[in-house]
């Protein structure tokens, strides 16, 4: 058994490489002792003992009066005064699908055409993206990689962020199909013709959605011998194994999406949902979760409450709706914890805010049996931060595990930092 104090770990990290090597499978029994454990389900244990065996959490418990049996562990890590969190889950991200927004060659999140249900983000996911280590360094250890654009964008998948290839990375393949809901928000137009055009555009898009889903529903039921790859890709929507993620903001669009889900008996998840607080009763009645794509956002309308984006998750959460928070894009996801932290200033407790980026997300993705919280028998995907990980001044990730493997927290940006600190000999 070895005892490790956290400062030793930091020194070991001083040998830096630009691209961290994925950690090898954990064969040890590890005890993390003394951290404040933020469970992810709204609970918190001020002084905890967290056991990791292989890839799983063997136990998470109150360490008060607990005297660990040294023989029961290969390694005991003392993390007093530090904080343990389940790995944050970045929903609706394009992590691994883009490395530099403005450089077309690095972008793999939007296929051409409007109906692309069979397009899969999973195979485009690049686990070697230089962005990924910078995101992990702030506590994001899992991501949903989602397609963008068109009407039916394709299917998303869930990955863990320490992998050699996309197969290794896969946590859940093809968890859902993505729709960009046709806009129902009428803008002021110069002429009545332009207004009619707006409406016609919506109707045309709706017709193609109905056609696609009529076909897919019939296909799923009859399972014909002649295969149609578009319809095949949508089968999971009709047996409840896949979500239908609907990107929309305006109240009428949300209602329309829910009605649509009703018609085809789909598991609809609203993504964006600026106006979702106006239809909480419907969301509650139909048990529809909401993924809020940014809390660091301006209000949707000039007249809205100026803190609408900050307090929206709390309104939904208090109304009993499953709500999850994400940032947008890829590099931006490193601020996921702070997106949640801001919400804690506007009506949620810190633990509830954390829940919105961990367990609630896992529940929406249907991976809550293994992920999303620090609970017995779940994957040991967690990190230790020296301070409050939802706050910029506290978030310092000192150690992180993905499925029990202690990962290398080095990244390209840290390497440049060290290089220039040294050049100038500054602290």
């Amino acid at each position, binding site marked *: 058994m070895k005892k490790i104090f956290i400062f030793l770990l930091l020194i070991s990290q001083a040998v830096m490489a630009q691209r961290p090597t994925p950690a090898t499978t954990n064969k040890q029994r590890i005890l993390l002792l003394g951290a404040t454990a933020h469970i992810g389900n709204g609970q918190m244990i001020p002084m905890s003992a967290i056991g990791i065996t292989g890839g799983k959490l063997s136990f998470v418990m109150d360490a008060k009066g607990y005297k660990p049996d040294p023989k029961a562990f290969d390694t005991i890590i003392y993390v007093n005064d530090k904080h343990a969190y389940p790995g944050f889950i970045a929903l609706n991200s394009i992590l691994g699908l883009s*490395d*530099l*927004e*403005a*450089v077309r060659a690095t972008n793999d999140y939007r296929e051409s055409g409007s109906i692309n249900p069979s397009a899969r983000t999973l195979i485009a996911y690049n686990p070697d993206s230089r*962005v990924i280590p910078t995101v992990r360094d702030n506590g994001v250890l899992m991501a949903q990689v989602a397609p963008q654009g068109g009407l039916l964008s394709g299917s998303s998948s869930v990955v863990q962020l320490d992998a050699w290839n996309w197969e290794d990375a896969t946590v859940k393949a093809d968890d859902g199909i993505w729709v960009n809901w046709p806009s129902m*928000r*009428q*803008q*002021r*137009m110069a002429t*009545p013709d332009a*207004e009619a055009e707006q409406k016609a555009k919506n109707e045309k898009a709706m017709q193609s959605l109905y056609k696609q889903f009529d076909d897919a529903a019939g296909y799923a039921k009859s399972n014909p011998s002649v295969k149609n790859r578009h319809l095949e890709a949508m089968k999971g929507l009709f047996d409840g194994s896949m979500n239908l993620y609907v990107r929309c903001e*305006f*109240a*009428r669009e949300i209602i329309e999406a829910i009605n649509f889900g009703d018609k085809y008996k789909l598991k609809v998840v609203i993504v964006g949902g600026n*106006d979702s607080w*106006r239809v909480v009763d419907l969301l509650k009645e139909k048990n529809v979760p909401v993924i809020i794509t940014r809390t*660091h*956002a*301006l*209000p949707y*309308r*000039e*007249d809205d*409450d*100026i*803190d609408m984006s900050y307090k929206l998750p709390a309104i939904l959460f208090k109304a009993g709706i499953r709500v999850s928070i994400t940032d947008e894009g*890829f*590099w931006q996801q*490193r*601020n996921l914890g*702070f997106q949640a*932290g*801001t919400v*804690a*200033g506007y009506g949620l407790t*810190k633990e509830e805010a954390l829940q919105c980026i961990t367990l609630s997300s896992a529940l929406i993705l249907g991976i809550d049996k293994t992920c999303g919280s620090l609970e017995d028998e779940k994957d040991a995907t967690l990190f230790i931060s020296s301070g409050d990980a*939802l*706050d*910029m*001044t506290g*978030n*310092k990730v000192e150690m992180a595990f993905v499925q029990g493997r202690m990962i290398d927290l080095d990244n390209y*940006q*840290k390497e*440049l*930092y060290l290089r*220039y*600190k040294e050049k*100038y000999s*500054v*602290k």
Partner: protein
Amino acid sequence: MSLQKDGIARGTGAVVLMGDGDIHKLILKDKAVNALSFNKGTSTQDYPSSLMGSIALIRQTYLDAQWYNYAKEKDFDISLAAWNANQNLLQLFEVNDYRSALRANLIGKEFGQNYCIRGGGDEYKRVDEIAKSKSTFIVTLNFPKAYDVSNPFDALNINLDDLRHWEMAPANASVLEKAGVNFVLTTDGLKEKKEFPSALQKALKCGLSKDQALKALTTLPAKLLGIENQVGSLKSGMLANFFICTKDYFEKENVIVEHWISGERYIIKNPDSIEIRNKYKLTLDTLQGWNLSASGDQFAPEWTLVRDTIKVKVEATSFNSQWTFRFEPKKGKGAYRLNGSFNLNGSRISGQAQNPDGKWMTWSAEKMGPSEAKKDTTKKDSAFVMPQTWLPNMAYGWKSKADIPSAGSVWIKNVTVWTCEEQGILQNADVIMKDGKIVAVGKFSDTDKVKYDGMEMIDGTGMHLTPGIIDEHSHIAINEGVNEGTQSVTSEVRIGDVINPDDINIYRQLAGGVTTSHLLHGSANAIGGQTILIKLRWGQTAEEMKFKGADGFIKFALGENVKQSNWGDNNVTRYPQTRMGVEQIYMDAFTRAKEYDATWKKFNASKSKGIAPRRDLELDALAEILNKKRFITCHSYQQGEINMLMHVADSFQFRVNTFTHILEGYKVADKMKAHGVGASTFSDWWAYKYEVIDAIPYNGAIMHNIGIVTGFNSDDAEMARRLNQEAAKACKYGNVSEEEALKFVTLNPAKLLHISDQVGSIKIGKDADIVLWNGPPLSVYSKPVKTFVDGICYYDLKRDEQLRNDIQSERQRIIKKMQDDKAAGGPIQKGGSAPHEEYHCNDMENAPH
């Protein structure tokens, strides 16, 4: 008065008579006005693409024309010659809204013109400033239609400013009249001219006096156009230009029957028509007991056939003096068809007819008395109650000027004070402000002589007090274009010309603790426009928001935006396309500026003076840089270009003041330190384009630790609301202390902007721009409770709650009114408000997106 409504300098307009005949004889005055606007219209030239570009172009044209007047050696310029020739005419300026009216007025003042302004119809929004402008206004009666509010969700998409404008636009003329603004009315702006009488009725109902309305349609425009000796009043010697109507022109049912134009008579309704709205006893065939009755419009009455309580519809038309009637006394039994004429006094109508069998016969009808007037079933509209104009007239606006508090004296007690000075962080301290300044910082008791009459006491227990946040790089509150990106050097344009004081983001950012914003030109070109520094004095005018006495700055830009790297494959020819070219742009520009400056210096030093050189606004601004009177903030990413610009500056003996963005600043921090340039960077942005591939969040910390004045900026209306959180990232990335990190968004940007003697820290004598937070200012969980600018509390968390309620009740009030208007048959429009005007560095469109 007729003119070409297209382009910026539109040429002259003529006064014409509206009669028929030889058009040459109808011209009353061939050159009556010289017309201008900010809108380039159908011009196919690139420049200008923004409102500030239009303003710069107009100012430069005035200067060029002046120079053209006195310059000796010059080529003939037909445009400048005409421009000069037209300066003595009435100068008519067409604008879109009150803000541009005030902008035009400022240009006029600079060049000795007081424009007559064709306004956008919203002058009521700032009527005091409009009155102060002393301009004459041409007021349109084009009022917005009510919105379709039947669906409650759709109605959410109409902002309160649009709702209020719908209600108040018809009252615009009335508000102007009460404020003593000199104005005339126009049909311009109406879709159809025939809407004018009903629009005028609306304006009258909203309080415009008939007297003023008449003047604004006759004597005043005549005087304005210098034709008051010919038209505009009824007196001998004037042109016989008048019209005749059936009633007082300003009464609703009035009908115009004749026009007289220059003595020519134009009959509109038969002027000799006699009153025929009577009941007539019909004698026809074997019909018994039937009367014909005419009622309604005098010139097109409705006819009915009446017996006792039976009413039969009569098809009636007239042609010259003869009437045609067709009716069926008994349905299905065939129709009588009549032709007939009235006698001279209208007491009898008679003629010939065919009965249903085709038999010819004579008929007549004798007057029995006037017909019963039709009952007015239209709903009486309630009297118009003038709403109070809010400042600005939108959500979160102040209810009136008096509603904006003045800077009294305030004592904030027992608070944690982040001074951003040597004193550091003071626990349980007091800060006192008076008349807009900080007058005491420390610990005081009631016996200390720091208490003033009427002093407001604020208990700061558990709270934190910081200096107001200063955003070095912002694009909020800008109208109609942030980039004049049509040329590589546009130092002549000024963001200060296009401040939008009605941007909701001003209020939202106050709620995030921002008190001062540096509004920058975009980064589309190497030398962009002059910047403006504003304080977020929400509710005040554009001019009032300007930071008084601040040094002038100018935006430069390097890298991918300037060389159009990400503009698509169609933008590969504008110079520069590489960083090599960018350097050449600077060297050329400053070489020209140096020569220009030398020419002027020589001229100013010479005793004999002689002829002044031509003034060039573009080179003026560059010469100011050379003379250290204007300072550069330069959008920059990669180390090479940063290094290059410092070399350019060195070679012309000036200093680059600030590198903004400066994401690779950490790579050349030593060189920057040696040059003496400051840094205003993002906390953690990267990966959005190739030139930020090496951007690191530790950049701020490295530059700070090396001794460069370092700040964090937003370049984003949302992030600006959380600059305290961005500052906190300097603690996370690079271990900057919290105390120093806060300076990244307060004292350090103040230093970069040369205003640190006025703002940026809590120090006696500085402006009372301070923020009271409900927790530690760098914590993600904290938010401002109060934000003071010049000692005035422009944002208050509690008051904000009240404003939200006010917005809801005000919306409801107007939405109800709109429904009433619709029920009364008023026109409606679909759709919601236009998208918000919001910019980032590289936004090229000047329309909102």
